């Protein structure tokens, strides 16, 4: 830590080693957006109520607005930008596109991370387990219906391997 309270942090984000100099009160969300330009994770409430800032830290889905960037030092972070890309969609992303699951899209990044965390842990969840996995991600446009349908489809089509696949 430097004299003036600024911390040098180094962590892997979406498989890439990232460094930044942050003041202690900087949240992981602020570091992702402002230091590394990864604006996929969103600020919806800044107090852990809405889930729009959900990312994976060491495989666990957490609200990045409630984790200090310094706390993420040395850990493995996955954001929406780490889940496939424009040409190579993750199966979840492809299903959400096929079913038009999202409308305004603001809650999508955080909710898709929660969905991925669910499938990483339980590739064949019941509908109730899917709803429990998403209850920390608020959405005002969709009523969650087509999101749950898409996740159900992915589980059915990909019983087992839920890897990155060529966009459909």
């Amino acid at each position, binding site marked *: 830590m430097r004299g003036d*309270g600024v911390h040098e942090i180094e962590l892997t984000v979406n498989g890439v080693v990232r460094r930044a100099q942050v003041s202690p009160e900087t949240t992981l969300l602020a570091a992702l957006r402002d230091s590394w330009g990864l604006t996929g994770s969103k600020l919806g409430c800044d107090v852990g109520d809405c889930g729009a800032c959900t990312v994976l830290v060491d495989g666990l889905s957490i609200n990045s607005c409630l984790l200090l960037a*310094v706390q993420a030092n040395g850990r493995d972070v996955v954001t929406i930008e780490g889940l496939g890309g424009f040409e190579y969609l993750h199966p979840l992303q492809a299903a959400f596109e096929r079913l038009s699951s999202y409308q305004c899209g603001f809650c999508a990044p955080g909710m898709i991370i929660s969905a991925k965390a669910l499938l990483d842990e339980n590739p064949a969840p019941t509908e109730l387990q899917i709803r429990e*996995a998403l209850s920390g991600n608020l959405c005002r446009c969709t009523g969650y219906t087509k999101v749950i349908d898409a996740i159900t489809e992915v589980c059915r089509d990909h019983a087992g391997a839920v890897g990155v696949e060529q966009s459909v």
Partner: protein
Amino acid sequence: MKTFEYIAPESLDDALEAMERHGSDLKPLAGGTDLLVDLKHTLNGPRIVMDISGVPELRGIEETPAGLRIGAMVTHTEIEQAPLIAEHAPAMIAAAVTIGAVQTRNMGTIGGNLVTCVPSLDSGPVLVALDALVTMAGVGGKRQLPLTEFFLGPRQTALAPDELLIDILIPTAMLGRPTSFRKFGLRKGQALALVNVAANVKVEEGRIAETRIALGAVSPTVIRAVNAEGIVTGKEVGDTAVLREAAQTAVTEARPIDDFRASAAYRRELIAVGTFRVLEEALAQATTA
């Protein structure tokens, strides 16, 4: 959020030493689901934030001669998935899954839940019903208190400014005791408790030898409904009239408030219904186990 100095001690001694040196200028940071929310709503936060996730003594769940020990930094998700908890105190899991959402449970810790100590905390009733004890440590040494004496009032515990909560102990006698938990919230996902209640029973030859009933969110701290316990103790299993009477008695022992979420009158209804149902479920567990 106002800036502060961040330190992350690697040992309990370093942590306690820092707390003694800085006193109320220093705030320990556990899961952050409560502290960071508070810091974002004030213009004058603490000078130092001490991240205690690196202190090994605060982690782990293990069986000890005195009972089941749960480290203060154990997260709600770890409790949900711990075989020892499933075996010895499954009601703790029933309570943990009602706390916030997946993200909150992956970050939030049981120690943080107890130290923040809002009257509606969801981990409180089950632990009180299991006669849980908490261990606190300061530079001067460790001390242990029953959880009921640890809670002093809303957001107020027995912790001295330079003390850390180390772990929670569920005494051996209470392990495996059939216990049930119920929470009434305004919504199914991410809900704060209007009323939460836990109860356990010890059944011998068709009679209720021993019982605990703990009520949350209906008085400054989690309380034991001792009069209601008295009514049930010694009675025959299956006597639902007794359970009704105990449920009504529990209402008289609580001091629910009127607030924007619900009226005291409605909370009293929930206390009665909740007490009856947790006693019924605990008895069902006891007679089928």
